[in-house]
């Protein structure tokens, strides 16, 4: 696939924090409308890679682009077309869900009437209309995650970067979230789904990238990777890739 046709292109991206190489020479591409899995253990470099894509951390080597916008030179353009749900975050406790979505919409300079309509539609979509005017401090983990996803969608992003979005969710919450992500992909949204819950990655994604100790150790279609490495399950595939890397 040519670089210009990809929604996300990453070429030799690296990040060093002092003596620690957090991301080392990572390259991959994500096609438009694809749900791309990004798997690896905690600390493998997935979060740092996503943060670099949004300009929250500056790369020390390589380059990347989101929908053709360079992540260093056009950071604000990238953020305008992208939605992001971090792995670890909180919502402002004194705001209601509706107020928070309006607040985030204002950061995108979305007109108030449009922002209200989009906010209400997202709250309905995630089944939060009854809790829309409740303070966020009383929200459960699942409700918080839904508001987190709603804020990532308020700008109708064409690219969605999700960092461990199913962590902490109960089975029903996970199922609902994965369903929402499938719907979004069907609508043409490109999704990068970063997780160490491999069953979620397998359920949702056709292609994956696997990271281990800052390096990309595999990238391709899940089915092809499993065939190539003789792995019956995702867990087996990941362990095989990691062991091969270690040896």
């Amino acid at each position, binding site marked *: 696939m040519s670089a210009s046709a990809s929604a996300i292109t990453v070429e030799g991206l690296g990040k060093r924090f002092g003596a620690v190489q957090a991301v080392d020479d990572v390259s991959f591409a994500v096609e438009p409308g694809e749900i791309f899995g990004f798997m690896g253990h905690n600390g493998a470099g997935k979060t740092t890679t996503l943060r670099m894509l*949004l300009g*929250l951390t500056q790369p020390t080597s390589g380059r990347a682009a989101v929908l053709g916008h360079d992540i260093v030179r056009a950071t*604000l*353009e990238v*953020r*305008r077309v*992208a939605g*992001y*749900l*971090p792995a*670890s*975050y*909180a*919502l*402002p*406790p*004194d*705001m209601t869900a509706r*107020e928070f979505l*309006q*607040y*985030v919409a*204002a*950061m*995108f*300079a979305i007109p*108030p009437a449009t922002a209200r309509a989009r906010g209400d539609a997202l709250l309905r979509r995630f089944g939060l209309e009854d809790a829309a005017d409740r303070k966020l401090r009383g929200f459960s983990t699942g409700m918080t995650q839904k508001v*987190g996803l709603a*804020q990532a969608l308020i700008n109708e992003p064409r690219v969605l970067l999700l960092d461990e979005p199913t962590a902490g969710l109960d089975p029903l919450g996970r199922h609902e979230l994965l369903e929402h992500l499938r719907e979004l992909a069907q609508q043409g949204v490109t999704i990068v789904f970063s997780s160490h819950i491999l069953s979620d990655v397998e359920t949702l994604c056709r292609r994956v990238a696997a990271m281990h100790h800052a390096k990309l150790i595999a990238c391709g279609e899940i089915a092809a990777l499993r065939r190539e490495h003789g792995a019956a399950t995702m867990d087996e595939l990941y362990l095989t890739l990691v062991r091969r890397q270690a040896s």
Partner: protein
Amino acid sequence: MTRLLWLDYLAGLRERKTWIAAAMLVYAVLVIPLLLADPPPHVREAIAAWFADADPFAVFMFVWIDLVMNKVATFVPVILASGVVLRERDTGVLAVLAAKPLTLSRYFVVRTVSACAVMLTLYVGAQLLAALWFPGRVAGFRPGTFLAAMSLHAFAVLFATAFAATVSVAVGRRGAGALVALMLLGLMVGLALVGFYQPEWYEMTLVNPLTLGALSMRDLAHLGASTLLPPMLALAGLTAVTIALGSRVVRKVEV
């Protein structure tokens, strides 16, 4: 950015700390005339020594500006503004907001201007309440002069709010930042009226923004545009420079 500022201002008004600050101000307005009605002997002696010939309203204004509102200018801005950006970082809210198409510098400006607007709302509300409550309770009270003098002091309070926000992000930690801002504002307030006690130091004290805010004390009988506008403009300029400085310093904050 105007819409974001408005929403941030509304959110700021609803915060618990804002209501605590409002309660402090209302308490001050309601209680000071009662306390001054029968001050302790040592306070009466001090007032007599400093203002033997002054009209009772001038004495009251000295107490109101220096002993009450300057203390408000030390504490309330720190309460309202010292957590700007840092609180969002510490709680994890910034992890979400920093990924939006707004630089951290601009976000700091929005949060600080919004804190200034909340401060101004509380301050104006308190002075208007005072203008209604003081007549009849304060000897020789002149509402027009009172409001003119306090409108200048409001600019000093706005400066203090911007200053608290900037010092906090410069320090980089919420608790330590609030303490440093409190200490520096306390120092400025402590030195604000030195020029009144030591006239030969007067010009030197004009570098202190809190002195500029209390300049109306020099001649309460002749307050007008020519006496109020220059210090107001100077304070507005200092506030703008302080916010600009903070918007540069905040870039070092790790998201």
